[in-house]
């Protein structure tokens, strides 16, 4: 047997080797383009689904966050508008009479202000600083009490001292 032929096909080939070569020649490597099966391509496409799901979740989360922020902003604007409404005038000071303002009723406060969006947040606000609605209500209350007290005392004074007009007139004359 010529071993050189087995190494580098030089020399004379052995007949038995040639026969084997012809038999196995059909199985020899033939360079050609690799064609993947269709099923394999579909599998690759399916691998993108988790990424798409993650991206969609992120988009939804960001959208929800933006919506919440805009809602909070709107709520803050409503609260600010309410508190800037005209407040009751200061107690019967002469300067106050010169102003021509109409005090709006505290009942005209929009009901949205009383509705809090977050229970925890509402509790925190109440404990930290009094709500602006409460401060406005307090001012209204003080105005009402002032007027009530003033008129009661006026009635009491007129009852106890009916001749106050005479005294006042005497004072003017004197």
């Amino acid at each position, binding site marked *: 047997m010529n071993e050189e032929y087995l190494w580098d096909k030089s020399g004379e080939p052995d007949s038995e080797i040639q026969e084997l070569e012809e038999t196995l020649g059909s199985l020899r490597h033939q360079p050609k383009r690799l064609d993947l099966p269709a099923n394999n391509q579909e599998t690759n496409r399916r691998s993108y689904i988790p990424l798409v799901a993650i991206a969609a979740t992120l988009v939804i989360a960001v959208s929800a966050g933006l919506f919440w922020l805009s809602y909070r902003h709107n709520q803050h604007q409503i609260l600010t508008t309410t508190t800037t409404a005209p407040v009751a005038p200061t107690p019967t000071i002469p300067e106050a009479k010169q102003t021509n303002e109409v005090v709006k009723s505290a009942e005209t406060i929009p009901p949205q202000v009383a509705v809090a969006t977050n229970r925890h947040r509402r509790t925190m606000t109440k404990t930290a600083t009094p709500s602006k609605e409460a401060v406005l209500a307090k001012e*209204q209350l003080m105005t*009402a009490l002032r007027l009530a007290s003033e008129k009661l005392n006026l009635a009491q004074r007129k009852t106890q001292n009916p001749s106050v007009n005479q005294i006042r007139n005497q004072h003017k004359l004197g």
Partner: protein
Amino acid sequence: MKSLFRIFLRTPALVALFLIAPAVTVRAQDPRIQLSHLDHLATRASQTVDVSVDERLIQLAAKVFNDKDEDEAQIKKLVSGLKGIYVKSFEFDNENEYSAADLDTIKSQLREPAWSRLVNVTSKREGNVEVYVSLVGGTVNGLTVLSAEPKELTVVNIVGPVDLEKLAKLEGSLGIPDLGIKSTKKPKDEQ
């Protein structure tokens, strides 16, 4: 048959009476009076004070009062049981801007037995001041002060148990100016 007809006719009437009577009684005991009839005066007035504080707002405002402050604690105690305070006050540049009919709309709601007139001071020069109280079981359940001066008309309606003495003493505290109405009243610092 006739008696059966009477029974059928009488029963709904009695049921209606039982249903309506408590509602009418409650309405009669409600010391809140309607002040909306005076709203048209706002166009003529140089200054209008319109305060409408219901029970919810009173409770809300009560939380703002500082308990450590003596004056605020006193006011908080005074308003704690109230169900509403309603005030309409109009100041005019000229006299005779409001009519007797305007006063009648208020006075017509302040009749006995629901209301008792406590004070009635009449003065041609300074106008009239009337104080009405609503009494239920011997306790004051409501207060209405009607002050009709030549250039000013004020109606104060307080709904709920109110201490008149404490209310009168409020003047001079918490930014409420002491007008020195009572000659015997001493300033707060001297007390």
